């Protein structure tokens, strides 16, 4: 299994090389990449990504052009999750190879972008599994979990100990339209707006402080 080091794809090398520069501390300068994956199920080992949606968020702005959503060809398939995301394995949408999808994603994640996702550990875990399958390593980016940050943004008495909030809860809390819920990019957009609202509440002075608030970060990484 896997590809030998010297056969690593070019895009991975570029990705890796882009991490040399220091990550900016001023929140407005940080390039956040908000992403979401739709998968065949919840097992990191057995299940596969069906689509990836991601967008770049910097200085409270999202450039529509930068956002993308790809649908991946997969052989693993779980009928039960089709009900959630509505993606059929051989649906009508145009599909690309997983490797191709990873390439597009890594391009966006270059230069120390900070990954933001709802229950980010799962999405990163899925992506890492895919990267490893294709002979690459785990993602190098730092990450933030909107579920955890949301919990932190609440008054202490209202916080949940398990920190589990569905994206729907955030939609309701922030009155975000659910029109595109359960599409990868739709969920990514919802997550992005929720993230901005949470930032507004937390008002972190630096990226470091923000990462600290995301207490489960290290824990999720072991996922």
């Amino acid at each position, binding site marked *: 299994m896997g590809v030998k080091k010297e056969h690593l794809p070019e895009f991975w090398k570029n990705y890796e090389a882009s991490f040399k520069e220091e990550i900016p501390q001023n929140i407005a300068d940080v390039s956040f990449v908000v992403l979401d994956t739709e998968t065949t199920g919840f097992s990191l080992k057995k299940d596969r990504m069906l689509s990836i949606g991601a*967008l770049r968020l910097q200085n409270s702005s999202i*450039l*529509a*052009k930068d*956002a993308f959503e790809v649908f991946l060809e997969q052989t693993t398939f779980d009928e039960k999750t089709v009900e959630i995301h509505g993606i059929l394995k051989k649906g009508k949408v145009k599909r690309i190879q997983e490797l191709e999808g990873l390439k597009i994603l890594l391009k966006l994640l270059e230069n120390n972008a900070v990954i933001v996702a709802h229950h980010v550990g799962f999405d990163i875990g899925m992506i890492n599994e895919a990267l490893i399958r294709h002979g690459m390593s785990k993602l190098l980016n730092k990450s933030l979990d909107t579920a955890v940050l949301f919990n932190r943004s609440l008054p202490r008495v209202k916080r949940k100990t398990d920190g589990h909030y569905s994206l729907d809860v955030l939609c*309701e809390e922030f009155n975000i339209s659910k029109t595109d819920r359960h599409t990868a990019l739709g969920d990514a957009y919802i997550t992005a707006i929720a993230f901005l*609202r949470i930032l507004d509440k937390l008002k972190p002075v630096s990226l470091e402080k923000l990462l600290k608030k995301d207490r489960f970060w290290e824990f999720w990484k072991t996922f």
Partner: protein
Amino acid sequence: MKNTISERIADFLKTFPPFSNLMKKQLDTLSEEVTIIYKEKNSFVFNVGESAHHQFYVVHKGAIALWDKEEKTVLDICDEGDIFGLRPLMAHENYRLTAKSEEETILYAIPIEKFRPYIKENRRVADFLVESFASNTRNPYDKTNRGQLLGDALQSNSKNNTPLLDLQLVDFSGNIVSATEQTSVKSIAEKMTSKGIGAMLIEKEGLPIGIITDKDLRNKIATGEHSISAKAKSIMSSPVITYPTKLTITQAQMAMMKSNISHLVLTEDGTVHSKAVGILSKHDIMLSLGNNPAVLVKAIKRTNKAEEIKPLRNGVMNLLRGYLEQNIPLTLTSKIISELNDACIKRVVELSLEQMDSGPPVKFAWLAMGSQGRSEQLLHTDQDNALLFEDVPDSKFDKTRDYFLKLARFITVGLNTIGYEYCPADMMGSNPKWCNSLSGFKKMTSKWITNPGPDEVLLSSIFFDYNRVYGDKKLVSKLSHYIFDTVEQYPIFLTHLASGALMNPSPSGFFREFLVEQDGVHKDFFDLKLRALMPLVDAARVLILSRNIPDISNTWERYEKMAELESNNKELFLACSYATKALLRFRTKQGLANNDSGRYINLEQLNKEEKMKLKRTFKTIKQIQEVLNVRFMVSRIR
């Protein structure tokens, strides 16, 4: 690659000019170039003097205020779909205004270079921009219009509904009261007084030969020219001036002016040689014109049957429509309309009393509850009422109540005849529960106040807004004082009432989305009554009860009183008063336009301004609810 984000941007933009003039493909391409920008409350988009950005902005959600140089005055507020920051780009100059978010806002920034080609190739886009620059008020919600919240967007389409007076046929009374030449003037005068009419027709062999009016009695009898025992023949005007029944209002007015008379006799063929079918007075004409509340009140007082009040109520509605069109202040409008409604109800009570075999055994009062009680009922809605009678010895109680129940049944039937639907919850004086003696009502209300559950709170919220329409004032005031005293002893009741007032959360969440109904026949409609009016009405009731102020049942008057009492909250209370009026006006207009109660609003039918104006009241609702929450410590019972 699919891009849900740019698709949604396009979906949004296509509903607003000038983007609505673009082809789908153009819009799709443009949308891909958009940057979505999130602004916290009170953050700047640009400042005066700053060089123009390479993009202009469309508000997606939230609101942006445009301030003048010194940030002293807001010149414009941009809401959903509004464009700003475009003119400096076109004129190649720096920003002349400061743009700052009024609340959390999401903007779509559109690069000017990507948009410019469309201005050149699409004339309608160019026209729109020229026009909006020229008028300088793309958003009509500018300072000059601010006073006219919920103004006249509906005006243009309702104006044509009133038929031209020239074509409107006169409505005349068919009940002719007549006498003969030989009838004495005295008995004619008596009959005219008892019938409440201003003229008596004199007939001979079934044909009209003369007429005697109030004026004749004054000029010919009261002056002593003729004696009171004179016969009709000696003072009547003869021959009579007759017209056919198919007469327009204008023709009738002309005829009266021409002959300088106040009454026209209408006959079968329009000549004196056929049977008289009606008498038309100046007063009838004024009524047909329907623009005079005094005339309507007089007419209501003159009715002999509930059926006769019904057409007068149509006149009231016409009056209302006219007032709303002319933007007469709602305070005045509602006062007049409520007076007229009260006059109708009063007359129904009087007529019902006439139907009874005997007079009332003890003093009583007829109370209007709910919106009629608050004088906020402009449209016909359900009847909510109660009958309160004086205490009687136990032995006489059943008999007394039976009398009043019977009376109440006459009244409620009468009210139904004139257009008030029966109350589906049977909160009517004809229900033994709502027809009770003073101590009966005292017992009931003190039970509510001391054991306030959700039902009791609901009942209180309807009943406590009562207003005496007919009957004994002292009796009602005794009940009011009792209620206020009891509330004072059980302050926890206020907490429950406040909690009830908070049952309907303010109508918007973040970004001021409308909360629409989730299911039922009114799915996706906005419930104006429940979501916007009731929270304000309920809050006012709690506040005024807590201040122990009886005798003000009207919501905006309650807020005005509160503003007077609490100067530190003056601004909020006045905003509440204003919001209530604005919402009521809005509801009434909607109701008149759709011929319903105006309660459920189809948001799709509203134009953008109307939506914005509605939304502006929501902030106030949210604030007053926060005040209630804190003041009455609602959380301790939740």
